[in-house]
């Protein structure tokens, strides 16, 4: 039998990210903890990807609504900053989905400014001959790159 906590973790984890709907909160690794106390109060902890992430309020509301809709009216969503989120928490499934969505996934265990210049594969043609156009993109977590092999410009979920 699945515990209520696991059930809520599964439901909340399946909520799509508002800015990158191909990914779920579980894929991103931002759903940190789910607890239910004896009175039935549900406490969900999420961690922001970036300090000023504008999607955070929407994510919080989505989680609250989801938990309420599944029979737990008393719910609190807490924002926890520590430990700080890292792209290393992104699931393998999340990386595959990102790539299919056309966004080059973040490289793992590489958070070091100097190593950010290593090759990123083009999600369109898999070539590693790509270069950075801009370190900042359409959302805080993305950079823009161009592929020298196929000529496509593509977003890259940058290492963080």
């Amino acid at each position, binding site marked *: 039998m699945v515990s209520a906590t696991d059930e809520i973790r599964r439901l909340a984890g399946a909520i799509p990210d508002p800015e990158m709907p191909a990914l779920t909160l579980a894929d991103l690794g931002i759903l940190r903890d789910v607890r239910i106390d004896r009175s039935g109060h549900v406490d969900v902890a999420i961690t*922001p990807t*970036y*300090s*000023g*992430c*504008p999607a955070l309020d929407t994510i919080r509301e989505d989680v609250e609504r989801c938990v309420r809709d599944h029979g737990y009216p008393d719910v609190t969503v807490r924002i*926890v*900053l*520590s*430990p*700080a*989120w*890292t792209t290393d928490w992104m699931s393998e499934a999340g990386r595959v989905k990102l790539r299919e969505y056309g966004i080059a996934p973040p490289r793992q265990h590489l*958070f070091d*400014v100097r190593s*950010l210049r290593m090759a990123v594969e083009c999600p369109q043609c898999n070539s590693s001959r790509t270069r950075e*156009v*801009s*370190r*900042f*993109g*359409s959302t*805080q977590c993305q950079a*823009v790159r161009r592929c020298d092999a196929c000529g496509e410009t593509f977003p890259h979920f*940058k290492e*963080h």
Partner: protein
Amino acid sequence: MTLVVAGAAAVSTLRIADDCLVLSHRLAQWSSRAPTLEDDIALTNIALDLLGQARGLYARTAELDGTGRSEDDYAFMRDEREFVNCLLVEQENGDFATTIVRQLLCSTYQLAQWQALTASTDGQVAAIAAKAVKETAYHRDHATDWTLRLGDGTDESHQRMESALAALWPFTAELFESDEVTRDVAGSGTGSDPETLRPAWDAYVGRVLGDATLVVPEGTWRPTGGRSGLHTEPFGYMLAEMQHLHRSFPGATW
């Protein structure tokens, strides 16, 4: 009006929050005006990171000073004399070179400061810092790339970088000033002593400017006062613009 904050810890977090907010607003003023689309996006992304950092610190300040004020209260309901940001962050954007030089000087300082604060005995400050370190590393990298490109670029870009450096350099002395507040938080371990940030800042900025063929300007003028609420003229105009909507429609939310 006087500064309504109790205790060094609250003043210390408020200073860092104000640095972040004011610099964030200055960068946001580039929105739709930057020289390239990529940099329009870069500068506003950096602004958003800084705004997020400011929000976290205002929330912490409200707990420390016991006033329970909201983030909006700090941003929109204080007058010029109550802001305790350093003078460097409030300086006008000028041309792109001026903004890039300001970014290099500020983000190098902020990165060193955040790195020190990851060891803060205030758990919340340490958590905000751990997040901010990664973001600020990108900010510094962006400023570094542009400094090299413009400094070691054409005669025109080099000359503009030189003028920007001459205009902004005097404001950097204030970044490393110690006073009762910094000594108190350095002693208790919640904050850092600005003097200790100086060697890393000097080394990095010196190396980048050197690589960019730029020379640190000489001169003895060292303006100060931001940390005690005494600001330069452009700041009042910036605040008037930033606070206009909230002052005209008190309690406005969106």
